[in-house]
């Protein structure tokens, strides 16, 4: 596929809001996972999460609108504003009928939804806020961003569990290749630190239970791992053709040059034991980008921190990269701030773009005793200097959804 430029970044995460603060914290490897105190989580087996702090300091969303939207839309609005400003986009000069929004999340606005459903059962129909109708559903952030900026072009919301926002960015790139939009605001948002959302994640059996040590609990590829910690946040990027970015004098961070998606089709929660379909997604992505395995310098990993997730991901990479596997450097920076579920891919893309820009691989933290079956170079615990020209981002959703994006350094 033709290259699509990433020309603006907006991040709202437990490791900081805005790219500079975020990158400084990611590079340092300082964990942002904490005990959940927003509600009483004492009866949950997993009671830790990455929380976004200081959102209000970055927000110019009116208090009137805040009553009508869920936290996931609020974070999307803040991240979108950061990305638009970072890209230097002057929307007054754009054809807004050619401006698209491609966003992904896995669970929708459950903080709002849960509260109103509780009121429905306690108070009856009239206890439910009319704002519920437009606050909870997964496409709400797309709608809010559209309303805020008057964007009226071809747009989509993608729901594909933890691959949602990576797919949103991939399909945004495909849409720009098809010349359906001039530019796209793409990414994802998630607000899962709520009683019901946490419960759903917990019952899937994918969350860590190392509650007494939040900062070291999320430990992908370590033999003592027992799942991931959830996190909230949003990642938004501005995407356009490199030619268009050059015409308006915008800095291009990196280009999306290919992607691949497959599904395992074996279980509603677990990925397939063999990793064959993830390997096929990697191969499709490389073919789509016109690259060979030996062209890849870095892989931003899914890092589920479940036994089957870690081992099958490693197995898939080994099968595609063969002898080059030992030259590769990989990492799961989300071990620092938690897994943002449907928003994780967008934040992974932003992390990888910043890694390329800074010639630095962010670490996988809490990796002290690697699982013998996980034998890649995971950049354990400390960031490493490394020039990255081509990189992959891997995201996997429950039930074996695989998405792989290929990024190339600009210039």
């Amino acid at each position, binding site marked *: 596929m033709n290259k699509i430029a990433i020309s603006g970044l907006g991040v709202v995460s437990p490791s900081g809001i805005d790219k500079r603060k975020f990158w400084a914290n990611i590079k340092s490897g300082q964990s942002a996972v904490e005990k959940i105190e927003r509600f009483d989580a004492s009866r949950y087996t997993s009671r830790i999460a990455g929380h976004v702090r200081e959102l209000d300091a970055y927000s110019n969303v*009116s*208090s*009137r609108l805040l*009553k*009508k939207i869920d936290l996931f839309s609020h974070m999307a609005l803040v991240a979108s504003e950061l990305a638009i400003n970072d890209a230097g986009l002057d929307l007054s000069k754009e054809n807004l009928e050619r401006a698209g929004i491609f966003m992904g999340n896995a669970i929708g606005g459950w903080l709002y939804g849960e509260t109103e459903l509780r009121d429905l059962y306690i108070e009856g129909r*009239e206890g439910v*806020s*009319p*704002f519920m*109708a437009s606050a909870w559903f997964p496409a709400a952030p797309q709608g809010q961003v559209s309303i805020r900026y008057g964007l009226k072009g071809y747009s989509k919301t993608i729901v594909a569990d933890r691959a949602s926002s990576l797919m949103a960015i991939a399909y945004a790139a495909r849409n720009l290749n098809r010349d359906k939009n001039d530019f796209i605001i793409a990414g994802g948002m998630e607000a899962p630190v709520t009683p019901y959302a946490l419960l759903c994640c917990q019952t899937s059996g994918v969350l860590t239970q190392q509650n007494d040590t939040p900062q070291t609990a999320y430990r992908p590829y370590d033999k003592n791992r027992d799942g991931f910690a959830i996190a909230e946040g949003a990642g938004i990027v501005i995407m356009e053709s490199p030619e268009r970015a050059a015409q308006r004098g915008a800095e291009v961070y990196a280009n999306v040059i290919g992607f691949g998606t497959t599904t395992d089709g074996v279980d509603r929660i677990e990925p397939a034991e063999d990793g064959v379909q993830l390997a096929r997604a990697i191969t499709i992505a490389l073919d789509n980008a016109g690259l060979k395995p030996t062209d890849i310098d870095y892989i931003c990993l899914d890092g589920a921190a479940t036994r089957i997730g870690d081992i099958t991901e490693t197995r898939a990479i080994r099968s595609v990269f063969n002898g080059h596997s030992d030259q590769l450097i990989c990492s799961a920076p989300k071990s620092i701030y938690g897994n943002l579920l449907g928003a994780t891919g967008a934040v992974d893309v932003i992390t990888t773009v910043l890694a390329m820009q800074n010639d630095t691989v962010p670490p996988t933290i809490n990796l002290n005793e690697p699982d013998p079956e996980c034998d890649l170079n995971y950049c354990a615990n400390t960031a490493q200097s490394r020039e990255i020209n081509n990189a992959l981002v891997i995201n996997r959703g429950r039930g074996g959804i695989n998405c792989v994006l290929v990024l190339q350094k600009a210039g």
Partner: protein
Amino acid sequence: MNPEEALKTKFNEVLDLKPEEIVLDQPIGEAHDVDSTELVEISVGLKKDYGFQLSDNDLKKTHTFNDIVEILKTKGAT
């Protein structure tokens, strides 16, 4: 609370408008960009105050603040 004060309170709670910011004699859709869900929220709040339900015809974007106060009075709000 008289109907005017009650409605000002609802406008403040739902629309974040201070009493002095409320335009009394212009359609509320034009003056304050009130949307349909906000009208429902105001209506539910008034029902809690007065015990009667305002119909869709009673609470429209084309009504002014003063129109709604009059409707409340005709329904017996004091």
